[in-house]
């Protein structure tokens, strides 16, 4: 409810946070005009951590570009690697072996589970459920252990190659995935009891930061935040890649189960359901890894890509990640341009904050799961 200024006995106040502030989910500036504790208008300013990674790709050769591409979103680097590989493979007309495609799918779904767990953990801190956040990090560690087992690295794996992946499946990896998916499935029920069935948690998120389907579409939102508002778009279903068409999985949508469709609670529920779907997908995929090669060709430093261009889309944990690659036939890319989901999704923040109260600010911002590394790439 918005009270009149006379009733509140207050005047407009201009507040600003950032660029570095624990209230914010990353490095950006937030300006708000408030009346009492109500936010009348808000605007954001970004660019404080601009890393020039698109330019870095132009200065490196095709092979070593992957190093800077890993840094675009350090939490989920395999999605940027995949988008870049798909685009280059299209220009070079490289057929990726089915075994390599399935390995890529498995690692990406592990990355999705890890990213959504991280989101739940951050949201638990924002809502005052810090104990739960520690429990969730325990499962996130299991995902990182699996990355280490398969790629040799917990972060920035630099594992995908043009035409496949860098190595075949490590011994014991499939068994560990089965164990981990079963364990996370059990722990999800615990989190459900601790958070979703806790009235204090529900009250912090239901009816908060409501995003309508029309506004989500108007602002070009993608990913779980858009699907929570009822926008049924998932690149894995709309334009399947890397063998997703072979597997049956559900795309969860916001149902307004505790508040209304598109509120903060729906954004949590959609991600929780996506974790479950990814776990199911993982358990099917690891049992269906086809025999064959894991790499179509061995690229070297002097690898040249024929003149041409390609555009690839993948569904990252935050939404549609797209990559436009241009080559002039040389050893370096002419252009590697990224469309990252957070750079688009952050535009909704001023609209969403209008009418919110100051105490809801961290919760509303956290519920969108923005990554400033993606925005300032």
């Amino acid at each position, binding site marked *: 409810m918005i009270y009149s200024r006379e009733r509140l006995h207050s005047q407009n106040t201009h507040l600003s946070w950032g660029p570095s502030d624990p209230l914010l989910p990353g490095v950006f500036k937030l300006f708000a005009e408030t009346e009492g504790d109500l936010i009348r208008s808000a605007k954001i300013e970004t660019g404080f951590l*601009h890393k020039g990674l698109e330019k870095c790709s132009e200065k490196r050769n095709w092979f070593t570009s992957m190093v800077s591409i890993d840094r675009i979103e350090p939490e989920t680097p395999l999605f940027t690697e995949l988008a870049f590989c798909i685009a280059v493979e299209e220009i070079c007309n490289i057929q990726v072996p089915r075994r390599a495609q399935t390995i890529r799918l498995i690692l990406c779904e592990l990355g999705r589970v890890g990213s959504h767990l991280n989101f739940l953990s951050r949201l638990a801190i924002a809502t005052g459920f810090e104990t739960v956040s520690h429990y969730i990090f325990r499962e996130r560690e299991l995902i990182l252990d699996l990355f280490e087992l398969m790629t040799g690295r917990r972060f920035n794996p630099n594992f995908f190659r043009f035409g496949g992946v860098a190595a075949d499946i490590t011994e014991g990896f499939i068994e560990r995935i089965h164990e981990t998916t079963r364990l996370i499935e059990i722990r999800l029920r615990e989190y459900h009891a601790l958070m979703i069935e806790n009235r204090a948690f529900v009250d912090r998120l239901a009816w908060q930061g409501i995003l309508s389907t029309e506004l989500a579409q*108007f602002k070009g939102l993608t990913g779980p935040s858009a699907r929570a508002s009822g926008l049924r778009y998932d690149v894995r279903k709309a334009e399947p890649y890397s063998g997703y068409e072979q597997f049956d999985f559900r795309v969860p949508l916001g149902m307004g189960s505790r508040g209304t469709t598109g509120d903060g609670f729906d954004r949590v529920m959609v991600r929780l359901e996506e974790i479950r779907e990814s776990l199911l997908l993982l358990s099917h995929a690891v049992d269906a890894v086809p025999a064959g090669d894991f790499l179509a060709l061995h690229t070297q430093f002097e690898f040249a890509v024929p003149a041409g*261009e390609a*555009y690839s*889309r993948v569904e990252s944990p935050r939404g549609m990640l797209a990559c436009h690659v241009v080559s002039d036939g040389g050893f370096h890319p*002419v252009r590697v*341009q990224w*469309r990252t989901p957070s750079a688009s999704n952050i535009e909704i923040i001023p609209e969403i904050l209008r009418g919110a109260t100051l105490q809801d600010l961290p919760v509303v911002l956290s519920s969108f799961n923005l990554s400033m590394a993606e925005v300032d790439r």
Partner: protein
Amino acid sequence: MTARLKKFESVFNQDSQTKNFGRSEETMLEVSSARMIEAAAWLRMEETFRMDILENMSIYEAKGRFFLSYFLRSTSQDTTLVLRTSIPVPQDSGIANHPSVEGIWPHAGVFESEQGPLFGVTFENGNKNPSIIRSLWKKGEYPLRKSYEWTNKGSEHDL
């Protein structure tokens, strides 16, 4: 060629060209910069296209020109296409001007305000999103242009 693409060519006959985008089967419509806004508005409104989502906008420099690619998607027709135009790269670190498509796709401001300062392209009538990107380089320096001198020296903002 489908009937709807023929319709597009009949309207923008002299100023457009239809191609495949790269190796893909995705359609790319190349339009002269003078009729770019008209073509964008036509694709947004025309019943057989209804390209209601601007998925991405990308600029790259080649052969002395900036190539602007608009990656479009239609939710009603369930199709995608690429709209492309090109403008010459200005001499002597000048600024290039191009009309903004924010009036057609409100979401365009995200891409225009990000890539505009890095290439030195001003999008006329665009609603500038606040970003400090444009203040990170000296006047006349545009890092994504091919003429930009890449050095190992840090910028004046580095500590």
